[in-house]
């Protein structure tokens, strides 16, 4: 018999029962909830006279709608306010822990779960949000679910699904200085495409992945969904354990030791077989920038906007033509020649402390270029913000001309007041460059925090690996 993959192990440990066609009830250990995809689920429970199966497994936080400035006025948009108040009421009614808007622990749901140690190795984690894949960095089986499934998990503590296939993506070698986890994951998406991971659970492996910090690993797992995979994951190692130790929700004392012994097994067996294997050489990865309206429409900073005329597939060619027209770009244009209007550093992909440090290091002592109308930093949580302020990163950003905001999803999806106006072009550290994602008619280029910071200073994209950076030491 061949060995098991990490995904096989996580799956097997959570099977409650299996139907003849393979449809399986899997038990859910952690359920993260936010205000946008939960109200209809709680309403469904109420209509059916049901209660949450295990309220203690649920952790809730408002993030999508929350304003990032003027918090002293509360949420002024009445529709957003109703959604946040509905979450407060639902949590209060069912005894669910919620980090409310005035709580320093409030932030983007995928930032606060790991930050609190509420995401642990070996867990099944769900949330009504596709970027739940983030939590796979902790060797958890973490998946985004729809609202009907949110209701199903609340009521039964289980999820009904069929097992996915196994894919391993190995990234080996040492990336050049200035190349980040974001560049690695954009390179992966460029390689396999936005549907490349459909039907698969992805495991990321290789020396370049092992060398990443937990925050970098979260960035990679976060964008698994942009490669089509519902979940992405990585094995447990010392980096994982060091990150989790003493976090508020992590086990303590004897229980910690017992847990660690179990967690050490959370890796694919040497003889495990994957349905698909992909390999990348980290040494070849350059800073990445998306040029189109799908994350797979990506090239490197040395690259040029591609020419649809060179594409033989008619559907793809049509997609490229539409993307270039929407993005206001010409075939053959140099990426470094693309001038920007706004800069967004934030989102569940890149709003953790290391992301802010990387960006601050680039802008230290410099000024945002005059053509940039707005450059903003939105920390991933209240605690990230607090830490950044302790390190005076806020001062570096403010002195350079950035706005320093309060935590939330913000302009990643523009559900609050932070958005692009039609035709505005943005260097964004978020995860989606879809049409209208950051505001109707807005044009998004996905990049790493360092690349976004460098673009803010230059006013256009520049190669961050060629910059002279003032050391913070």
């Amino acid at each position, binding site marked *: 018999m061949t060995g098991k993959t990490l995904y096989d192990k996580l799956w097997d440990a959570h099977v409650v029962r299996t139907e003849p066609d393979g449809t399986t*009830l899997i*038990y859910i250990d952690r359920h993260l909830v936010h205000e946008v995809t939960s109200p209809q689920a709680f309403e469904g429970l109420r209509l059916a006279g049901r209660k949450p199966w295990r309220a203690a497994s649920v952790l809730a936080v408002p993030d999508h709608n929350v304003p990032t400035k003027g918090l002293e006025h509360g949420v002024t948009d009445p529709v957003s306010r109703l959604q946040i108040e509905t979450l407060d009421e639902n949590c209060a009614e069912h005894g669910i822990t919620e980090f409310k808007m005035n709580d320093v622990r409030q932030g983007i749901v995928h930032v606060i779960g790991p930050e609190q140690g509420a995401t642990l190795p070996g867990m099944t984690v769900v949330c009504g949000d596709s970027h739940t894949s983030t939590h796979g960095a902790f060797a958890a089986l973490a998946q985004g679910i729809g*609202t009907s499934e949110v209701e199903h998990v609340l009521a039964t*503590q289980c999820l009904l699904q069929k097992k*996915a296939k196994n894919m391993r993506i190995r990234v080996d070698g040492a990336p050049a200085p200035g190349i980040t986890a974001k560049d690695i994951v954009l390179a992966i998406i460029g390689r396999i495409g936005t549907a490349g991971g*459909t039907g698969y659970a992805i495991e990321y492996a290789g020396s370049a992945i092992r060398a990443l910090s937990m925050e970098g690993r979260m960035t990679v797992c976060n964008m698994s969904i942009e490669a*089509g995979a519902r979940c992405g994951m990585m094995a447990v190692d010392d980096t994982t354990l060091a990150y989790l130790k003493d976090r508020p929700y992590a086990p303590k004392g004897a229980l910690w030791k017992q*847990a660690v012994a179990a967690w050490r097994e959370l890796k694919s067996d040497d003889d495990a077989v994957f349905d698909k294997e992909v390999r990348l050489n980290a040494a070849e990865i350059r800073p990445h920038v998306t040029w189109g309206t799908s994350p797979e429409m990506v090239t490197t900073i040395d690259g040029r906007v591609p020419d649809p005329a060179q594409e033989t597939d008619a*559907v793809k060619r049509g997609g490229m033509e539409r993307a270039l027209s929407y993005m206001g770009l010409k075939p053959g244009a140099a990426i470094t020649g693309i001038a920007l209007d706004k800069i967004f550093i934030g989102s569940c992909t890149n709003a953790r402390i290391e992301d802010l440090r990387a960006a601050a290091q680039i802008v230290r002592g410099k000024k945002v270029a005059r053509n940039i109308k707005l450059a903003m930093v939105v920390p991933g949580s209240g605690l990230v913000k607090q830490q950044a302020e302790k390190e005076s990163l806020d001062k570096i950003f403010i002195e350079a001309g950035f706005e320093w905001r309060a935590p939330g999803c913000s302009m990643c999806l523009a559900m609050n007041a932070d958005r692009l106006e039609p035709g505005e072009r943005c260097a964004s550290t978020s995860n989606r460059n879809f049409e209208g994602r950051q505001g109707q008619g807005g044009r998004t280029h996905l990049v790493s925090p360092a690349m976004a910071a460098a673009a803010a200073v230059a006013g256009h994209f520049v190669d961050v690996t060629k910059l002279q950076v003032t050391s913070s030491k």
Partner: protein
Amino acid sequence: MEKFTTLKGLVAPLDRANVDTDAIIPKQFLKSIKRTGFGPNLFDEWRYLDHGEPGMDNSLRPLNPDFVLNQPRYRGAGILLARGNFGCGSSREHAPWALQDYGFRALIAPGFADIFYNNCFKNGLLPIVLDGNVVDRLFKEVEAAPGYALIVDLAAQRITTPSGEILPFEVDAFRKHCLLNGLDDIGLTLQHRDDIKAYEARRRMEAPWLFT
């Protein structure tokens, strides 16, 4: 959930790949705390010429005449013909709610994004995967023949074209059973309450740190 058995539906073609859930239902409409009423804002940014916000009277808004669903020949369509990776992006179930509310009951594409595919079944909406070449051909047939309709028979797992051609399709047995009978997943799962409790008791022993 509404049952799905057979459907004869006019087909509307949406000829672009990677249609994401932000395009299906833009974020400003996600602020609703209801499951219904999303239909008028389906494909909002493509369908109207102005910017849509919740609470607007959509019947007064200027339509984009170039958008396929605004063409009179596709009015009342019940089946959406689409390209690969349909429904990619966010997990928002508002996407299938909007498609359903608009009047679609079945979707045909060479592939769907996983979360979206799953969400459809929870709402009585049938996503059908057909080979890319077959989908290509259907796009040509729909374009050539106004009033082009397909008959979808879920029990028999087949589609009948106007020329009488039969196109078989795959669907999981469990999902098919739920859709044919309009069954509520939660009710079914709770029939296995004892299994869940037994699992929980075992797990509590093996991994007590998960239950603190």
